[in-house]
């Protein structure tokens, strides 16, 4: 019993004396709870609404103003015709469109029912469902106010999930998985690769050779670039063949953007390796510091728009967030480069910054 007690005491001492372990044991759970708590939302705080009013009558105006005054919907565009809807979604400026058929109020009076099209961006099925639900409830409210119960005509919103009519969640996940896999392979693997050389001591010999830091870094990056690229092709092929996820946009563009993202992730991995000395530390930073935020804050599963503002701002520095926008736009919405140049530019800037910082931080000496 005495030896057991002594042993337990020793373990406590080890834990408290190793600051890294203590940080993980106490810091991580709190951090995760806060992140999860704030990030996981099933409400939508803001819906970007486009109105296509082909009727312009009292009923449509009343419904429109009711939608807009509910606080959840904000008017982004007045659409002149339904054809404008697709591109507007592709550019990401709207995620819902409401189309009133011509002669809306008249038909409602005469027939007792009419059609209201509710079109949402199906590339995120969760959001779609929620938005449709909101819209339907607002419309029901309106009807309830205007007409006595049981005599109410039906205004049945016909929801259309654009890009993803069947609301298949795999459309949501595949782009996210691509980002995750590429991030994992690129960042984790490169960060371990460099710190491993530091640990076994070969880095000393490499430094003393005539190799420049740039050569060493690029030499580390190149094979992983190739491997990650093969990964992209494999994932895309599987997504298409097994899950039926389409690529409605340009495939070459998708591949190029993926290569860019790989480069960003690789630079991130290199940067991590320049600030850590051990493989263990590199792994922990990669896993805890990269993968977890990527899953939670990139819009992979939980919509960024519904997170509190600080987290939304923070999510902007997560490369995967930008990549997801790009991939979903290309694969599901058929967007072309003109819609995506801003997001692409962000990734390019991130890559350049990280690479430059890495080359600077990569010391030519051991100190």
């Amino acid at each position, binding site marked *: 019993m005495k030896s057991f007690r002594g042993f337990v005491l020793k373990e406590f001492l080890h834990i408290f004396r190793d600051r890294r372990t203590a940080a993980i044991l106490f810091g991580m759970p709190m951090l995760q709870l806060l992140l999860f708590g704030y990030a996981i939302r099933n409400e939508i705080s803001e819906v970007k609404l486009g109105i296509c009013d082909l009727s312009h009558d009292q009923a449509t105006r009343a419904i429109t103003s009711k939608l807009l005054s509910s606080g959840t919907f904000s008017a982004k565009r007045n659409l002149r015709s339904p054809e404008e809807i697709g591109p507007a979604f592709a550019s990401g400026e709207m995620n819902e469109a409401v189309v009133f058929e011509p002669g809306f109020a008249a038909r409602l009076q005469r027939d007792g029912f009419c059609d209201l099209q509710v079109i949402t961006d199906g590339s995120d099925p969760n959001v779609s469902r929620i938005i449709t639900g909101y819209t339907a409830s607002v419309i029901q409210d309106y009807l309830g106010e205007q007409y006595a119960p049981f005599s109410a005509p039906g205004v049945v919103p016909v929801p259309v999930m654009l890009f993803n009519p069947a609301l298949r969640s795999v459309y949501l996940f595949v782009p996210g998985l691509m980002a995750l896999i590429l991030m994992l392979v690129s960042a984790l693997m490169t960060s371990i690769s460099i710190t491993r050389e530091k640990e*076994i*001591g*070969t880095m*000393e*010999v*490499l*430094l*003393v*050779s*005539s*190799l420049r830091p740039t050569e060493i870094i690029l030499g580390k990056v190149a094979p992983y670039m190739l491997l990650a690229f093969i990964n992209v092709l494999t994932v895309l092929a599987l997504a298409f063949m097994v899950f039926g996820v389409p690529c409605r946009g340009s495939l070459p563009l998708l591949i190029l953007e993926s290569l860019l993202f790989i480069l960003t992730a690789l630079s991130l991995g290199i940067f991590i390796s320049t600030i850590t000395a051990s493989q263990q530390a590199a792994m922990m930073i990669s896993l805890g510091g990269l993968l977890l935020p990527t899953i939670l804050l990139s819009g992979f599963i939980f919509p960024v728009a519904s997170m509190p503002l600080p987290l939304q701002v923070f999510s902007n520095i997560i490369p995967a967030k930008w990549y997801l926008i790009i991939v979903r736009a290309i694969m599901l919405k058929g967007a072309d480069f003109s819609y995506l140049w801003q997001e692409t530019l962000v990734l390019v800037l991130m890559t350049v910054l990280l690479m430059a910082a890495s080359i600077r931080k990569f010391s*030519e*000496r*051991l*100190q």
Partner: protein
Amino acid sequence: MIAPSAVRIAEVGKSFGAVKALGRVDLDIPQGELFGCIGADGAGKTTLFRIICTLLLPDRGRAEVLGFDSVSDFREIRRRLGYMPGRFSLYQDLSVEENLRFFAAVFGTTVGENYDLIKDIYSQLEPFRERRAGKLSGGMKQKLALCCALVHRPELLVLDEPTTGVDAVSRREFWQMLKRLKAEGITILVSTPYMDEAVLCDRIAFLQKGSVLGVDTPCGITGLFTRPLYAVRARQKYRLITALRRYPHAASAYAFGGSVHYSDKRPAADLRDLLAWLDASGLEDAGITQIEPGIEDAFMALMELQGETGTEGADG
């Protein structure tokens, strides 16, 4: 004309936070010399070597290697340098051949170009050239690491404890290889904790806790031991050591293999008196002969002079 120095260290000091790795080091190593740094762990050998190899910046002083300043012209030095850090530093999962080819490529040369330099050593490795470096014995790893350091024909070879963890036979062979390399005109800087290897160098420096206790040829450095030295033998070694230390005129008494090396406080010991003392202590079979001091005797005497023997690690 005096040949320029291969390595010139002037007033170099280096600390890592609160730990003083090197206090103040001055060294001048001419070209073509086989120079040994002798000292225990923590003496500062690795730190000094890393400064010479331009991997660390000295806090104070200046290091000039092959005529170039180690801080401003480090790239010139690295081109002409062959470095073998401790722990062999090879790629364990690459084969013997792959390791060698890699290091040759990294230096912009090929294995064939300077093959004559490493031929003698590599021929012993040839039968295993496809074996993973991780699966070699200590002695073989050492030889491979040496080949990788030589493959680009460096002017200066810096070897940090190349014989640690290697059996006695391989250690001897290694030093023979170094002597042959010296004949090729390469300046060689070696560190080792083994005193018996010091004898094989042209000159040696004793390092202890970041300071140089002395620099000289192996013969010369034993000359620092000024008192006469005696080897005392008896069958009961422990009793002998304690008896000698209790002797009122004893200056030092240290076990040395089969005998105890004894030095007296007086200019010359009174051997008869000493024998009588030992006899009275129950060591009737004691025998005393005067001997020439060796490297280890000199090292320990120098440690004593620095006040190192009583207070082990006063500064941690």
